[in-house]
């Protein structure tokens, strides 16, 4: 494939923007042309966030086209579905964390949170594949719940669908997380990698 289109979706504060920059930086380091487009709405924490990462020689626009995402990497399941329904290509992959961040709309009784089962069925209906991992628990296992985004990056690397080497990705992770958290982040990366490889 000459072009890889990835969307990293999540809720503000989960680290999806950092994750997208790590992927993009790694891709550039491996000699690939890259574009990243971000949408983080008006909010900081608690709002829906999606980063579009496009890797390929002829890429010029910052946003993935409708039905154009090879992978939607979701740090939160509802956000995964929100982006998959619009962007996931036929045969594309939704790789999602299973830990939900319940929106206020649901808490105040004005909306319902979809079950994991209904999300799986929806992705299949769209002609896509789905892989689910409990990245939040794995991050806690790695020693810091905030490494969840790196667990998901490890999982993404584990799918083998990224045109970037695992070593470059790991190196860029090391350079972009706070020095004190490098070990926890490396553990998180490996846990994510192995969760998908198994």
């Amino acid at each position, binding site marked *: 494939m000459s072009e890889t289109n990835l969307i990293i979706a999540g809720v503000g504060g989960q680290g999806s923007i950092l994750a997208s920059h790590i992927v993009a930086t790694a891709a550039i380091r491996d000699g690939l042309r890259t574009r990243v487009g971000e949408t983080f709405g008006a909010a900081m924490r608690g*709002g829906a966030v999606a980063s579009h990462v496009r890797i390929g020689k002829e890429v010029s626009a*910052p946003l993935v*086209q409708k039905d154009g995402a090879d992978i939607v990497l979701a740090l939160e399941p509802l956000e995964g579905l929100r982006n998959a329904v619009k962007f996931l290509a036929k045969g594309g992959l939704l790789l999602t964390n299973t830990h939900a961040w319940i*929106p206020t709309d649901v808490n*105040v009784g*004005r909306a319902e949170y979809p079950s994991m089962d209904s999300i799986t069925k929806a992705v299949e*209906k*769209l*002609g896509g594949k789905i892989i689910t991992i409990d990245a939040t628990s794995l991050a806690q296992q790695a020693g810091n719940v905030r490494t969840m985004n790196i667990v998901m990056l490890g999982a993404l690397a584990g799918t083998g669908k990224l045109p970037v080497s695992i070593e470059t990705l790991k190196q860029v992770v090391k350079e972009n997380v706070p020095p004190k958290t490098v070990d926890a982040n490396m553990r998180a990366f490996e846990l994510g990698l192995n969760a998908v490889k198994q």
Partner: protein
Amino acid sequence: MGNEAIARGAIEGGVKVAASYPGTPASEIMETLAGVAPKLGFHAEWSTNEKVAFEVAAGAALTGVRALTSMKNAGLNWVMDMFMTLVYGGVRGGFVIAVGDDPDAHYSSNEQDTRFAAFYAEIPCLEPADQQEAKDMTRHAFELSEQLELPVFVRSITRICHASGDVELGAIQKLDRKPVFDKHWKIPYRWNVYGPPGPVEKHRWLHGQLPIAKKVVETLPWNKLELRGKPKIGIIASGIGASYAREALRKLKLDGKVAFLKIGTPTPLPEKMVTRLLKAVKKVLVIEEGDPLVELQTKALAKDVNCDVEIVGKLSGAMAPVGEINTDVVAGAIAKVAGIKLTEDKARELARAEISKLVAPRSSTLCPGCQHLGSYWALKQALRKVGANVPIINGDIGCYEQGGYGIAGKVIKPSTSTVSVRYSIDSPYETLDTNYIMGGGVGLMQGEFHAGYRDGPIVAVAGDSTFFHACIPAVISAVYNKAKGLFLVMDNSWTAMTGHQPNPTTGVTATGEPAKVLRVEDIAKACGVEFIKTVDPFDLKATTTAIEEALKYDGFAIVVARRLCTLQAQRQKKFVGKRMIVDQSKCTGCKLCVSLGCPAVTFKNNKGGVDPLLCNGCALCVQVCPTGALRAE
């Protein structure tokens, strides 16, 4: 990131003074500049508002050094007075005005297209198609500015500002210019618009620069006409429109089969290139982000050079006049113009519609443990205590504006009532009744009072940065003209919403130097306000009491709810949260905790709870819980 690219362009261009006020999507331009300013030896500042920032940069340019001011779309509205007048005498040193527009209003109260301001002011506008151009254009803008002795406008948009790509860097120019001053430089009374020969002659000079600018833009590398063979269709694509158009043409397999004019200067247009295109084709599609500036000018030009060519775009309805464009939208428009039928997978569209119903909305919220949650809770309680019937709560711009974002999942029926109507509020996100612009609320409240509105208390809210930006004249006017009402200032001592920039309440400058701390209550006192109370919004009881007293006060009252932004407090390790203990056997399911609006509060199986991963231990919910089901340790 595009904003970093613009900053880099300014650094390569030898900027000496840069000034800005935070505003998404443009904030990172100054953040990037401020980060390196001390090391590279130039001045970078967060001014109190965009107008001051503009003047700071303009003043520097009058002394012959290079200067830049950056702002978001709405920020430009604040500078229009100075902007429209400064151009009459122009500048001596290169002066770049970098503006981040926001089509689709991702972070803004409107979608305004500021390229029209450049057209209005008769100065050149550069519009990048990607990050590389953002950097290169900004660098060149200083030279162009000095060549024309006029400010030069760089118009970016969210999809450039907040998008990233690889950029090839250039050398950093070390200019080391000594600032000089000459009041009659080339034109008598150059920097004093009233000085003889007066404004009309200076306007004539400004207008006389336009033909020169038109000649120059024909030679810039960012305007480029690709015309081979005898194509029937021509595309004119400005700024990021060119990036979308290239991908769309590839998708439609029309590469090289249409004439393509890429525009980097939407004003003035490279008229010779446009003319060549208009004479060569039968139909032209204009692709641009924002309003039809290029399309309007192209149509005007076509009347003189080729009346028969058909021109379509946003004016003709070939593309939607609102919202942002993208590759899909552009491909759709090109396909229509080229007579290509795009097939739609109907089964897939049906499935998509069905699945979309599953996607619950995620309304924007304040952060877990945000001090504004306490302020809003106290305001609601105080209004209840004074028996408020239909209060008017005027909002403002900042994190707390989320107090008016509503709950997306809640269906609201438009009302046609002829009397004041009271609505139930389930969460702090339904508190604000009006909201427009920086400092707007405290002005509106006075009009509501002077109109004679007495169906309920009149309140305005604003943050600390907003107070300094735009509220002070309105506070003085309220005192002077005897308006009555409550002005609640939610002071978290940072400009938080735009990504935590310092302001006069913070105690540091843009470059991290210690600075004098100004207090809202001191300024209010100096403005003549007689009722001023300062409270801690984490103390719900004290905050409620203060607001209640202010609501009962017969005059203009200010309550300052001050507590350091919770994210800053955590970053600076100035706040250690408590551990929340939930005893669900005591929970009656009253949902008061939910109505606090904290994202860490959960509600499942008719019982309240706390998400330990999100909770920061502020214990506001403990103060709200009437049954003791929530405790803090």
